[in-house]
């Protein structure tokens, strides 16, 4: 059985005792708020124009015009913010030497890893949950289908966990937090845009690159489509990164 609670509580504590969690959450909300405001403003501008031009009305759709870009934007913010959340998880412990005691406590590597993973997830999910306020705000003004919204949030949850897992993995390989953050961000960005190369790398390789792309799998969610293929992609990505992290921790030990 997993014994992650003490580590989870400790990590939550250090996120919220230090300014990290507040800074991350505040920046997240400022950015998502601004993006949301822009999409709403743009959408209302289009609506105004549509009132003069009846042909445009048929193409006007709240899910496609507002909700989908909203989730896509939050996805980008998550890519920017999550490396800052995960960079400290193992790198800080290694740098300050607290790993020594941590690894001599009666805990398995898995307990430590999952405690840290869940703590980072909680800090990530707090601002995500707060963005629901925007949706509620729109719903007081107009009819909004709830299905696509739930799909979008599911997508954010799955994608966020995958990002966090990658971030933890990178953090476990270095003792420098800045290096951990930069490599995580670089890899996320690369996996985000990897599909771009698909157009000119041939049909087989192109398809592989497309499927590797983090954003391609998220597109469906933000359009309100839950495809089992995308769910499996994010889950596998998460598990694989966590598995690698476990291996890294283990190898650090026998290598001394």
């Amino acid at each position: 059985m997993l014994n992650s609670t003490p580590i989870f509580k400790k990590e939550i504590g250090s996120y919220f005792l230090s300014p990290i969690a507040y800074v991350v959450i505040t920046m997240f909300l400022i950015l998502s708020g601004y993006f949301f405001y822009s999409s709403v403003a743009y959408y209302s501008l289009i609506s105004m124009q549509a009132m003069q031009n009846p042909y445009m009305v048929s193409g006007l759709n709240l899910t496609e015009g507002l909700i989908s870009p909203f989730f896509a934007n939050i996805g980008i913010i998550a890519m920017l913010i999550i490396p800052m959340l995960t960079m400290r998880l193992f790198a800080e412990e290694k740098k300050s030497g607290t790993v020594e005691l941590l690894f001599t406590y009666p805990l398995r590597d898995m307990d430590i890893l999952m405690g840290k993973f869940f703590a980072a997830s909680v800090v990530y999910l707090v601002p995500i949950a707060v963005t629901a306020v925007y949706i509620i705000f729109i719903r007081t003004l107009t009819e909004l289908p709830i299905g696509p919204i739930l799909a979008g949030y599911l997508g954010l949850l799955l994608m966020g966990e995958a990002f966090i897992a990658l971030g933890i993995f990178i953090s476990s390989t270095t003792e420098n937090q800045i290096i951990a953050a930069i490599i995580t961000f670089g890899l996320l960005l690369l996996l985000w845009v990897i599909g771009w190369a698909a157009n000119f790398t041939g049909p087989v390789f192109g398809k592989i690159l497309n499927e590797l792309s983090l954003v391609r799998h998220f597109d469906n969610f933000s359009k309100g489509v839950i495809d089992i293929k995308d769910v499996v992609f994010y889950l596998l990505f998460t598990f694989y990164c966590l598995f690698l992290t476990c291996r890294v921790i283990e190898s650090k030990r026998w290598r001394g």
Partner: protein
Amino acid sequence: MIEIQNLTKRYGHIKAVENISFTVQKGEILGFLGPNGAGKTTTMRVLTGYFPPTEGTVKVAGFNITEKPLDVKKRIGYLPENVALYKDMRVVDYLKFVGRVEGIKRSAKLKQQVGNVIERCGIGDMQKRIIGKLSKGYRQRVGLAQALLGEPEVLILDEPTVGLDPKQIVEIRKLIKELGGERTVILSTHILPEVQMICERVIIINEGKIAAIDTPDNLNRQLSKQLVVLMEIEGDPQKIVSVLENVDGVMEVKQKRKGKVKQFEVITRPDKDIRKDLAQAVFENQLTLYELRTVEMSLEEIFLKLVTREEHHA
């Protein structure tokens, strides 16, 4: 309680510890003595399960460290050399965290145990402080407090008195002595009198190998291949030397101080106590004896001797 057999630890090609074997009984206080880089910390880290041995077996309370690491870790409290604690936590919160990690589930029991170790280590006034703001001495004590949590049967303390002021050193030593008996304690140190004061057995380790294992007293005895007697005598120095040299068992006489009362260092064979014969010889020759005492070799000298001897071999 602790059995170590043929333990070897390599970092890449560098051998940190080579073929070490020893056992520690329950309730014993064992001292680890050695120069920097001798392999003390490496041995301790293997014992605590921080990293596995390259070769050999380590058993704590019958559990093999590589097969049942959790069972071993549950029974060990560890104070590392550089006490690295979570600097942004409050002392009491940190200790509660360690308590939970050690498997204390009920909050009443947790509170009571944390209170216990806080009192024992004398950090009651500091419990609401943030660890990063504490002085080195108090941080050391918090480190000791966390090692005691979960009531471990074995305590492994890597240089527990480094960085403390003299008063704190005395207190910590007293605490460690108290802990021995109910718990098995292994501690490493540079300070030799400390070993003599608190340890029941000493392991002198040098270049990854055990140079000697024994009680501090036995080490003193075994290693003093000669007994030195210091005498202060009034009279003609040449006569004194010849008189002393004629006593059976005397190997060498050296004059240490001139003046009216001269001081002589008489080196004798250790198997026989000849102080009586020396005194008698002085009286019979109408010399005046002011002082006669044996000079014991301090553990410090033994330590230096062992370590340098090892180096000669290498």
